[in-house]
């Protein structure tokens, strides 16, 4: 895989009007590693992720991908988006296109690759995530887990240098959660740089290099997964993990 660039965030701040959603966030994701983001609802996890792929503009700070700083200006954000893949909680597949076309559209239109080449690559990716036999169907004919795996293949087709996941399994039934996590574990093991917002502790323990805990727009604590989940240092993290355990 090519998705193994490092990414670093330097004193990122973001306001929605007068509401400060991110406060001076700095973080490094080493190339080829998986970082899990967690924290209470409204803590800014999605906002941070959306800044990382340029879906949101930010007001202060830099994002550096593979050593190249990307500012917050519109033209630079476009470049950022091509190199950073994103998988959403609600899949967001294109309902009017077949599974195969969902995967090939961006490489063909954005990267200007040929149809043959894109389709070959797409089929490889669809096989890899285990939905190769559904290539000709429309997304609505697939189960949730299958759709999310197509969405992962779609993001991979752009050959991004890093993959972002925003709660990729929270809209799925337990059986589908496992299908999707298996694919993500496989990706992480093969050395893809990943940032994943999730509360799946099992996933974090198995493949995450680091866990980042956010609260109220800032990073409160980071650490190795086992360390963090077994004995968090801060009170806020303790309270949060207590809440999760209770649910």
């Amino acid at each position, binding site marked *: 895989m090519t998705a193994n660039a490092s990414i670093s965030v330097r004193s990122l701040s973001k306001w929605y009007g007068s509401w400060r959603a991110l406060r001076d966030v700095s973080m490094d994701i080493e190339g080829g590693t998986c970082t899990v983001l967690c924290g209470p609802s409204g803590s800014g996890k999605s906002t941070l992720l959306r800044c990382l792929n340029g879906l949101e503009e930010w007001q202060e700070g830099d994002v550096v991908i593979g050593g190249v700083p990307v500012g917050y200006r519109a033209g630079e954000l476009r470049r950022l988006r091509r190199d950073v893949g994103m998988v959403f909680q609600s899949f967001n597949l294109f309902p009017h296109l077949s599974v195969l076309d969902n995967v090939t559209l961006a490489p063909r239109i954005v990267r200007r690759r040929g149809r043959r080449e894109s389709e070959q690559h797409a089929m490889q990716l669809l096989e890899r995530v285990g939905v190769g036999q559904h290539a000709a169907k*429309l997304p609505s004919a697939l*189960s949730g887990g299958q759709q999310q795996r197509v969405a992962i293949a779609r993001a991979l087709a752009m050959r991004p240098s890093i993959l972002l996941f925003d709660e990729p399994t929270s809209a799925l039934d337990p059986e589908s959660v496992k299908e999707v996590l298996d694919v993500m574990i496989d990706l992480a093991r093969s050395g893809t740089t990943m940032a994943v917002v999730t509360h799946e502790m099992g996933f974090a323990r198995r493949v995450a290099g680091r866990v980042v805990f956010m609260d109220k727009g800032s990073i409160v604590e980071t650490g190795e997964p086992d360390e963090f989940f077994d004995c968090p240092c801060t009170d806020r993290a303790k309270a949060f993990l207590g809440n999760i355990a209770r649910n």
Partner: protein
Amino acid sequence: MATTSVSGNSRAPATAAGRLLATAVANPFGTLVVLGLAYLAWTLGLPIVDWAFVNATWVASDRAGCNPDGACWAFIVNRLPQFAFGFYPEAERWRAWIVLLAPPLLLLLAMAPDFPGRRRILVVGFCLYPIAAFVMLAGGVLGLAPVPSEKWGGLLLTMVVGLGAFVFSFPIAILLAIGRASKLPAIRLLATGFIEFWRGMPLIAILFMSVIMLPLFLPPGVEFPRLTLAMIGITLYSAAFLAEVARGGLQSVSRGQSEAANALGFGFWAMQGYIVMPQALRAVLPGIVNSAISLLKDTTYVMVVGLFDLLNIVNAALSDPAWLGLATEGYVFVGLVFWSLCFGLSQVSARMERDAERNQSRTPSGERKAP
């Protein structure tokens, strides 16, 4: 319904008449209603059939040759070439024939069973039609003799104006709809202002304005034929209505779609063209066809600026001394022609909706995942 009780435990009667009788007995109220309706249809419908067919005259050289108790269709038959083509010179009629027959043929193709490339032919056909029709009719190029647009008329003119205005207004409408949803206040204001202006004015006023006022703004020496000026007015009018239909479609596409497109690096126009618009327009297909139907009928207003579309040319023919007093026949004819065109359009719309539905509900996969 009570009718279902017939197929109870008793043996079903063998003959159709027997079954009918059994149904009638089982449901006396329904039977009464049906008989009442049949009586009404008989008393009202029979005179119409008598007038339109039994007593009608199809061949005659003037009004006097027609049976006074029936329809004088001979008037329509005699004038048919004029109603179809206006004053288009007879030597060049073959060009008019092509322009006149192309849209019905495209409609037939739209109803035909699917084959590879059918959709492409349809889209390209409808998009090219207005330009191709104009070139074909106007001539002056490709060795075609020039025919001034004052000579175009009848159904030919209706077709060219209706389809032309619709096709030209489509891209404008899409731009307006996108503009109205824009984040930039200036663009939003412009688009909204444009839409409200053209939507709020009566078409007749627009036609007068475009034919009388527009030339005042053109540089001296530049002259457009009245048909072109009227077309510009109708196109903008139609664009304003279509834009609102398209906007409804845009609102039905979820934000997640544009986010996913953005996340994949699509630029704004690529996102609109490949992802948002195809979904938006599909969602409002019935509204689009509805607009097309009303536009087709609205073309009859061009008579106020002296263009001879189908309605106006029939209207003018009514004052021919040889065929006086045949208004009913004339308007029934115009009505039937318009009705057939609109009926064709709504059939195509129904077909497209059926296709879209079948696509959406393709059998879901039974199996869960590959072993």
